[in-house]
């Protein structure tokens, strides 16, 4: 079959690597950003102050029910119409951050609420402050639920980062398009793109599975 040419990956190694590294970069930056934003939203949702609850709930519900592309387009096409121009890489990363934060917020909230209320009551009764209770009693237990969930979000981020190709964001899919227009060998070009993604996502999936199993075993003891 003249359609497949393995040497292509070596001929275009530099461009594959540029895209691959950008994909990793976007995923990591957006993971950190969405963890911080998600933690803030989660605190809003459980804080004893109604307007904050409403804001947190509205954020999560709206973002979770609209496509990532709308959020990315808001930064890439919407903001320039208001006089703020961002390039594809930056608007893609911001879009991914804002979008993923909603899912991470839910994971953190679920983790905290999974700890029985008796635990915080007991901790408060022994004289710990609210903050001490959170740090020493609630969060260490919540992490068992939160950590695998964040791992899953990281996998989603790596996959979703491909949306940068839609806004010329210099990721792996974007560079693949450039290589494809030079070589006209889409089968080869995109098979290698798939392999590059799998190199990232498969080990991450196994790591999440491992975490889930470990925490489950610890629970059943």
């Amino acid at each position, binding site marked *: 079959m003249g*359609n497949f040419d393995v040497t292509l990956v070596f001929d275009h190694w530099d461009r594959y690597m540029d895209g691959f590294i950008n994909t990793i970069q976007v995923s990591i930056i957006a993971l950190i950003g969405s963890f911080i934003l998600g933690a803030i939203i989660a605190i809003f949702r459980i804080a004893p102050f109604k307007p904050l609850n409403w804001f947190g709930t509205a954020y999560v519900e709206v973002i*979770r*029910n609209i496509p*990532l*592309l709308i959020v990315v387009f808001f930064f890439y096409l*919407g903001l320039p119409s208001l006089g703020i121009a961002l390039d594809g890489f930056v608007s893609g990363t911001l879009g991914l951050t804002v979008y993923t934060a909603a899912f991470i917020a839910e994971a953190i909230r679920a983790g905290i609420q999974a700890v029985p209320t008796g635990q915080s009551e007991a901790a408060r009764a022994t004289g710990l402050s609210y903050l001490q209770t959170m740090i020493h009693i609630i969060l260490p237990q919540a992490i068992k639920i939160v950590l695998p969930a964040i791992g899953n979000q990281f996998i989603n981020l790596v996959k979703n980062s*491909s*949306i940068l190709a*839609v806004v010329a964001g210099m990721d792996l*899919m974007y560079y693949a398009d450039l290589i494809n227009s030079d070589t006209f060998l889409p089968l080869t070009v995109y098979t290698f793109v798939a392999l590059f993604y799998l190199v990232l996502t498969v080990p991450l999936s196994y790591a999440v599975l491992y975490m889930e199993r470990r925490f489950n075993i610890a629970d059943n003891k």
Partner: protein
Amino acid sequence: MDFIGAYSIPNLTFILKGFLITLEVAFISIILSFLLGTLLGTLRYTRIPVVARLTAIVVDIIRNLPLLLIIFFMKIVLPQIGISMSPFWSTVVGLTLFEGAMISEIVRSGLNSIDKGQIEASRSSGLSYMQTFWNIILPQGLRRMSPPMVSQFISLLKDTSLAIIISLPEIMHNVQILGGQNFNYIIPALILAAALYFIVNYTLSIIARRLESKMH
């Protein structure tokens, strides 16, 4: 921003026409991915030696790839090996493969959650393996799977927007065109698109929550 200009009748019709295609693609893909997912999930559940293992590998590969790449593959790569599809069917097939793989995991864990004692009980009461699966395991499993299944359908509806990469004239494609005509239209158009997605998905998520609370 120009809301009045953006929401003129021709523009609204244009966006709604796109949303109709979005819904059409989503509807067909939901049905097909449900069927594929149930089939694949059942194959993995049965533990038939080679088949179950092969299914697991294929499902894991698909689940770990970006959907955008899979849709692109259908439209750009398949013609090279003699399979040409319209943007509409490329999207449907891509979505079906990806979401079907996701749903198969839901089906598998749903089936696994049914107590093994039930299999033993129905086998010893004289039901065959097929009868046990069909009448005892599958109905209970499907009920347990329904909340995560609806969530997956919500993802599917959102994911149809990725078809913009192969120029399917769905809603986001039309929103982008409108924004290209007049950039004061882009934010109003995005807000309208968000509202349409939100209405459909929020309704679905309320259904999912109802299903969940019914079970407990």
